[in-house]
């Protein structure tokens, strides 16, 4: 009931957030790319053309310095990385996240919440065990914290920095970085546990194919059949397996820079990490919407572990039959 009443406020807030997010990357477009060539040419004149060709191709020489990559005079990949990060990932991520929020808002306004067709029977069926819920909320809370701190590292300088005193800004960002770096490996463990725990439920069957063909019941009135997990939930599982593990693995490479990773390696993994996590976040918005506001009776399943009989019958009829059959034995 609460949800229904606050529905309009909620969507208005999401639209506002969307507008803010979309406006952010505009400033990023304005930058022109650096010119290492010009800088170097001004400060290292009088050299032979051969030398220039070598230096500009990033040829390594000899040096007494032990810093990473010190033997290379000019690391040419840096500018490309800057361009990819500032010109593509920053605005692209904002568009992906904003687009996801916009699509969800639009969907909510047009279709609204998926209601229970039949009134609740009051009979409750266990759907998620204590273990399931522990893993889910462990991963979910870490995901939100890592998401906020990670987005701060990508975007906060555009909106948080102008409103905070420098000292507070420094502490906030230091905290964000440390929280992100220390919770990352704990998130990795959770994701692994989740993947292992729910692996057996997530093989696609013909039932899922029909479920997809009917658009998961979103389009039209008839609700397609589904087992314990429907096609959409399985897709989300495999998104976590592929994109989620990509985020986790790339994050671990970045988190422990003490294994002699080169600058080029770190650049590559930063790009992978940013792209994969932005995709995951955009997808997670959809998951959060469907699990809370979008479907009546879904959230209580992950909150209490139990769902109402009529919810089970409506959304997971094959699973419901299975449970009913088992309880009769």
């Amino acid at each position, binding site marked *: 009931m609460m949800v229904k009443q606050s529905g309009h406020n909620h969507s208005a807030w999401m639209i506002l957030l969307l507008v803010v997010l979309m406006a952010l990357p505009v400033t990023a477009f304005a930058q022109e790319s650096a010119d290492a060539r010009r800088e170097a040419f*001004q400060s290292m004149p009088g050299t032979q053309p051969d030398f220039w060709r070598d230096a500009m191709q990033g040829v390594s020489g000899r040096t007494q310095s032990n810093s990473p990559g010190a033997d290379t005079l*000019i*690391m040419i990949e840096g500018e490309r990385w800057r361009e990819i990060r500032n010109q593509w990932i920053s605005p692209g991520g904002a568009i992906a996240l904003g687009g996801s929020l916009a699509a969800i808002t639009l969907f909510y306004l047009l279709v609204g919440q998926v209601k229970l067709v039949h009134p609740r029977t009051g009979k409750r069926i266990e759907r998620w065990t204590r273990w399931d819920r522990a893993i889910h909320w462990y991963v979910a809370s870490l995901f939100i914290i890592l998401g906020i701190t990670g987005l701060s590292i990508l975007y906060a*300088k555009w909106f948080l*920095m102008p409103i905070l005193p420098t000292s507070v800004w420094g502490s906030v960002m230091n905290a964000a970085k440390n929280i992100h*770096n220390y919770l990352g490996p704990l998130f990795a463990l959770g994701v692994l546990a989740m993947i292992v725990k729910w692996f057996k439920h997530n093989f696609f069957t013909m039932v899922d194919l029909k479920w997809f063909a009917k658009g998961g019941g979103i389009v039209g009135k008839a609700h397609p059949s589904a087992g314990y997990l429907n096609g959409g939930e399985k897709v989300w599982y495999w998104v976590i397996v592929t994109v989620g593990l990509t985020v986790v693995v790339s994050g671990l490479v970045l988190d422990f820079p003490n294994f002699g990773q080169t600058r080029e390696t770190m650049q590559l993994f930063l790009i992978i990490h940013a792209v994969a996590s932005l995709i995951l976040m955009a997808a997670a918005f959809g998951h959060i919407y469907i699990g809370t506001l979008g479907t009546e009776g879904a959230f209580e399943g992950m909150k209490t572990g139990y769902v109402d009989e009529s919810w089970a019958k409506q959304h997971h009829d094959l699973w419901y039959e299975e449970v009913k059959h088992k309880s009769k034995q």
Partner: protein
Amino acid sequence: MARMKFLCDSERCIECNGCVTACKNANETEWGIQRRRVVTLDDGEIGKEVSISVACMHCSDAPCMAVCPTDCFYPTEDGLILHNKDTCIGCGYCLYACPFGAPQFPKQGAFGARGKMDKCTFCAGGPEEDPVIEEQKYGANRLREGKLPLCAEMCSTKALLAGDAADVADIFRERVVYRGHRNSAWSSVEHEASDAEQLAKSAADLAYDATQSV
């Protein structure tokens, strides 16, 4: 205001690492932090070996500044790129973007976590009111004392020049004119090349004198 720049004359650099030592001494940087380095390409190959002293170039459009998540970099009136260690979070992005490998990180934390970034300040210190704290955090502020970076001042062959870009460029241009460039129009004729060498010798002294005026 001036536009400060370094210039390294590769024809003169003898890879003595005097600039590196001078920098280390002037700024008392942490163990493992080397703000300036000398890179030698084609080491040991006669006629091809070239050495260049390199540190932060104080770029006009600085990549470090563009990618910094906390925007801790700022340009000064002199065209230098300095940074605030209080807002630096040690993420290393500046190191990944910098073409010249200028940003340095002390390994302070657990699991290889980086400390606050350190780099060449053109001996201009950093954003700190108290000069004592400024020196501890950022190293020397020789510019405030009317001096130039110690690396350039101590360069034994005056290969490394530092100062206003226009002045430094003038000195170098003068050197090139007297030295003669191997690829320039007249020096391709052999007997004129030896004349050019004679000229270059006297020009070297002239260029040296030019640097003494700063």
